[in-house]
C-alpha cells in the first residue's frame, strides 16, 4: 500500500507540475495534462483493486467506512478535475488540475494511514 502511495504521489506531482507550467505560461491545458491525469487515474484504480483484494482477503481497517469513503472518493478526483478544467479556456485550467493533484496526494496518504490502522 505504501509503495503504491509513493507511485501515486509521484504521478500526482507530475500532474501538478504540468498544471503549474501551463498556468505560468498562460496556456490552456492539452494532451500532456490529459495523459498525466490518465496515468494518475490508472495508478489509483490499481490501488483500489489491491485494496479490495486485501479487504476480501480479510484485512480490516479500524475505520472501514472512512477507508471505503476515501477509496471511492479518491478515484473520482482526477475525473472531476479533468472535467472541470476541460471547459476552462484560460490558464487557470492548469491550476484546477494542480488542486486535484494535491488533493489526491493528501487523500492517498490518509488512505494509507487508515489502511494500516487495524486496531491491533
Amino acid at each position, binding site marked *: 500500500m505504501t509503495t503504491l502511495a509513493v507511485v501515486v504521489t509521484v504521478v500526482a506531482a507530475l500532474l501538478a507540475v504540468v498544471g503549474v507550467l501551463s498556468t505560468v505560461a498562460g496556456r490552456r491545458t492539452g494532451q500532456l495534462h490529459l495523459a498525466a491525469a490518465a496515468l494518475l487515474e490508472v495508478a489509483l484504480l490499481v490501488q483500489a483493486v489491491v485494496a479490495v483484494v486485501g479487504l476480501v482477503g480479510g484485512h480490516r481497517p479500524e475505520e472501514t467506512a472512512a477507508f471505503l*469513503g476515501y477509496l471511492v472518493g479518491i478515484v473520482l478526483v482526477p475525473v472531476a478535475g479533468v472535467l472541470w*478544467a476541460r471547459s476552462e479556456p484560460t490558464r487557470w485550467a492548469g491550476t484546477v488540475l494542480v488542486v486535484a493533484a494535491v488533493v489526491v496526494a493528501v487523500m492517498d496518504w490518509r488512505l494509507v494511514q487508515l489502511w494500516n490502522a487495524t486496531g491491533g
Partner: protein
Amino acid sequence: MAEQPSDTAAGPGRVLVGLYGLFAVAAGARAAVQLATDFSAAPVAYLLSAFAAVVYLVATIGLVRGGPGGRRTALIACSVELLGVLVVGTLSLTDRAAFPDATVWSVYGKGYGFVPLVLPVLGLLWLRHQSELAAAEDDEPA
C-alpha cells in the same frame, strides 16, 4: 489575450469553485460519518462540521450562479465562513474542552493545511473584483 471573464465561475473563479465544492463534499462527508457513528462524543464539533459543509455548499452555489444574486449569496457565505473559521479557530485554542474532536475550522483549519483560513479571504477578494467589473460595465454600457 482575453483574461478578464466577468463570470464568477470562470478563470481563477473556476479554481475557487473547485475548492469550495471540494470542501463542501469533504466537510459534508466528515460530518455525516461523525453524526452517524459517534454523535454523543462531541455534538458541538460535529454539528459545526455539518454547518461548515452547508456554508461551503452555499458559497459554491453562489459562485457557480454568478450575477448580482449569486455574488450576494457567495458574499454572505464567504463572510460567515471567515467569521466561523476565526471564531472556531480561536475557541478551539482557548477552550479545548468544548472541542474534544476536530472540525474543519479547528485551529484555523490546521488539519486542512490552513486552506479553510485562506479560502474565504480569496473568495471575498474575488467577489470584490467581480463586483467592480460588474459596476464598471454598468457605468459604460458597451
